[in-house]
């Protein structure tokens, strides 16, 4: 089973915290879509299994028309074996989700929406330069449901400027009323070079302190679980049977193919990532040059990836798989490195799994670093 990711590097405006590769200039739109389709043809042999998930991410894929999306999907169908019940997700900006557009999406078999809500507070949205309003977000969810979408996810960000703990609680509670199937919630990162980062450097915004941020996360987890969500990954919550199958593939190290500028692919042997810039990507695709960088994974890389992605999931590291794939020595290294964290309650062993506790999640980078192996 495999997944395909399509990167649409366009956004109508740039959010101030964003360091993803996306452009607000749409002039290369047509050229890019042509090249995406060319890349799909070029990569047809990358996957020799059935494709179980397709994910349009970005950027903001909902800036594409349903016709454009359909062209891409048909190219995929022509080159890969897509399962009948494949999960096909579109990341969307609330402003773009009109009834008409949603109807068209249904027709081209898009069956899952990931809506970038981020917050239900207009002041907070403005502070990070999101283009939509809180009202638009609520409407988008309603209209989507009314148009037959029953697998809807929303994104929220905690620790935004203008957001205190009380306000975050409100955001979580509002999300709970929406009757959605999935929620992703990330702590705000001040990425170097972004406008928001510059504001922080100038002292114009102050990041929330660690204590508040931890309290926000705790509230999130508690509330979601109380409302029937399963906390299945550090930042992801799902109603039963509604885990994101596509993202789970990343964590379970299934094969995935990334199409488009900056997209990543993995096939168990190597990882590769496409060139970042739209112009260069298109030029190389058109001229038949190599458009990606590739890294062949050593056993050590594979072990480190395994630790890293497994600990993202709340199930944690499956010892049985660890032993089978990496042998007794690495298993022992892992156990030994985990010991101190088990003792201080940041890691726990459940059955044959080593997982982060909620406390451990907060310092998970440090824990992963300990569990990693570098020779």
């Amino acid at each position, binding site marked *: 089973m495999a997944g395909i*990711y399509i*990167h649409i590097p366009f956004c109508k405006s740039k959010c101030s915290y964003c360091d*993803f590769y996306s452009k607000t200039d749409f002039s290369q739109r047509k050229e890019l879509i042509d090249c995406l389709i060319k890349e799909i043809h070029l990569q047809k042999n990358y996957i020799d299994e059935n494709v179980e998930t397709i994910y349009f*991410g970005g950027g903001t894929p909902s800036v594409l028309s349903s016709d454009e999306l359909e062209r891409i999907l048909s190219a995929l169908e022509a080159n890969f074996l897509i399962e009948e019940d494949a999960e096909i997700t579109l990341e969307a900006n609330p402003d773009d989700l009109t009834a008409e557009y949603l109807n068209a999406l249904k027709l081209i078999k898009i069956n899952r929406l990931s809506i970038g809500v981020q917050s239900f507070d207009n002041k907070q949205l403005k502070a990070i330069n999101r283009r939509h309003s809180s009202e638009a977000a609520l409407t988008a969810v309603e209209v989507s449901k009314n148009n037959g979408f029953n697998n809807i996810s929303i994104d929220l960000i905690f620790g935004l400027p203008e957001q205190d703990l009380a306000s975050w609680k409100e955001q979580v509670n509002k999300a709970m009323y929406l009757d959605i199937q999935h929620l*992703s919630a*990330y*702590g705000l*990162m001040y990425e170097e070079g972004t406008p928001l980062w510059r504001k922080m450097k100038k002292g114009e915004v102050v990041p929330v302190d*660690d*204590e508040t*941020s*931890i309290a926000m996360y705790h509230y999130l987890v508690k509330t979601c679980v109380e409302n029937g969500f399963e906390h299945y990954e*550090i*930042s992801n919550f799902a109603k039963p049977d509604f885990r994101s199958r596509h993202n789970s593939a*990343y964590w379970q190290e299934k094969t*995935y193919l*990334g199409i488009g500028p*900056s*997209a*990543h*692919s*993995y096939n168990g042997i190597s*990882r590769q*990532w496409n060139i970042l810039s739209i112009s260069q990507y298109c030029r190389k695709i058109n001229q038949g040059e190599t458009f990606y960088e590739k*890294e062949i994974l050593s056993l050590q*890389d594979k072990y*480190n*990836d395994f630790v*890293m*992605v497994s600990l*993202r999931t709340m199930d944690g590291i499956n010892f049985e798989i660890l032993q089978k794939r990496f042998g007794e020595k690495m298993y022992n290294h892992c156990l030994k490195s985990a010991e*101190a964290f088990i003792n*201080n309650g*940041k890691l726990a062993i459940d059955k044959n799994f080593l997982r982060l506790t909620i406390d451990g*999640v*907060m*310092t*998970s*980078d*440090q824990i*992963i*670093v300990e569990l*990693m192996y*570098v020779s």
Partner: protein
Amino acid sequence: MKKIRNFCIIAHIDHGKSTLADRLLEFTETVSGKDLQAQVLDSMDLERERGITIKSHAIQMNYKYEGEEYILNLIDTPGHVDFSYEVSRSIAACEGALLIVDATQGIQAQTISNLYMAIEHDLEIIPIMNKMDVDSAMPEEVEDQIVELLGCKPEEIIRASGKTGMGINEILEAIVKRVPAPVGDPNAPLQALIFDSVFNSFRGIIAYFKIVNGTINKGDLVKFVATEKEYNADELGVLQLDMVPQETLSAGNVGYIISGIKTSKEVKVGDTITHVKRPCDKAISGFEEVKPMVFAGVYPIDAEDFEDLRTSLEKLQLNDASLTFEPESSVALGFGFRCGFLGMLHMEIIQERLDREFDMNVITTVPNVSYIVHTKKGEVMEVHNPAGLPDIMAIDVIEEPYIRASIITATDYIGQIMTLCLGKRGELVKQDYVSGNRVELIYDMPLGEIVFDFYDRLKSISKGYASFDYHMNGFRPSKLVKLDILLNGESVDALSSLIHFDNAVSLGRRMCEKLKELIPRQQFDIAIQAAIGSKIIARETIKALRKDVTAKCYGGDVSRKRKLLEKQKKGKKRMKQIGSVEVPQKAFLAVLKLD
């Protein structure tokens, strides 16, 4: 012999010795176009990268003057005070010296100290004003300074530029005309002074010598007078850009000898080479042995590397006899070595060479000087390590080494420099005007105070317009205390230092602050304390790390995050676990970087 000229190039640091040497090599066609890179004599990678000379370098040039062929033996010397012994050795092999003065800077502290060494050996001094091409050159002013210092005539000073080649022909001419040819009897018993030695991994030890009297032939059976060891002169030769073998060399010449010597300890620089069959009456008076000035513990990060570290230090010693080391152990750091260095730059260089030439990952502890401890029982001992200090109650007096320092600066900075020296327990001995608005301050100061960020602060308060030179000047009793640093209540012996009582509280406070900056946050709070005996004099806390979770792995970008975390992991591997606290390498030198 009348056609030989032996000379060295001496100057304050960075005044352009090596660059001027490049021009001499170029003008005499010793080095041809393709080999001619900047500072060609600075052959070590480290020298090239840092743009400083660490070791003296000898090279022979041929020069035609008025129809006659001359052999010019040049020795380029380092300018940094840590390596001043290199200068004194080179001087012993020469009859003349080019004294270079940077025309933009004028006379500086090492100009004077190196000049005195040359005068002591009766060398003919040829003063050269260098960097004349630079706009900010002040030829009139600097000329006055040189005339005053040397008592020479202004016309004797050659104006030159190592950059443009200005004055180079004049310098070559002056070397022939003004530097005396060596004297000595080629038929007398052999007497050759070893002035340097280098290690070559294929050929073993190569000793550089100057023949004072007699003649040496390839294959001769020779004796090194001080070590009393006998060798066959397997190969003899002169030092051009490469070594050029010769059948015979006689009085006045500078050359090299390879005789199957494996370790640097067998060759004492300053020793005399003579023939076994027809020995000379007495050895040439050699050099004072170079003594290390500062000591620091050098520990492998990984305890398993202890033996490798020993091997690496031994190898370094082959090339650098001034490095000393003896095993020691530390509660915090395990097994390592107490190394003796000539100064802070030397220490830095050794640490860097260990890292890059031997891939040895080490922790260097706070350096200290050597102390003489008198116990109440009347014993006297030399202590190189604060941890090696006897119990306070058993100590009668501690004596610490003093230096006599010369600082040359513009009058504008005198006030601030005096404040700095006072803070370093300096006593002003005298104050002389060098010329115009430039002053030489002579201070007696504890050597231990120079080790702790003296040089950097001198440079910054004088905006670079102060130079500094020193020599040892005896021991004096001092009120010293041991300052301990505790991490989570555990004393870390590797962070202890011996300091003057009056400075203890402020230093303790600053060290705690610095360590707080340098030790990364960990899973728990870390208390940092400074203590004298059982009395805590300063305290800081590093709060536990509460949150370090990065955002999602965006779009399956696993590689980037893995690499980021692997990098952190490698950084951690370079840290030392002390109790439960992980301490980065650089924290052990924190005390040197207090601001």
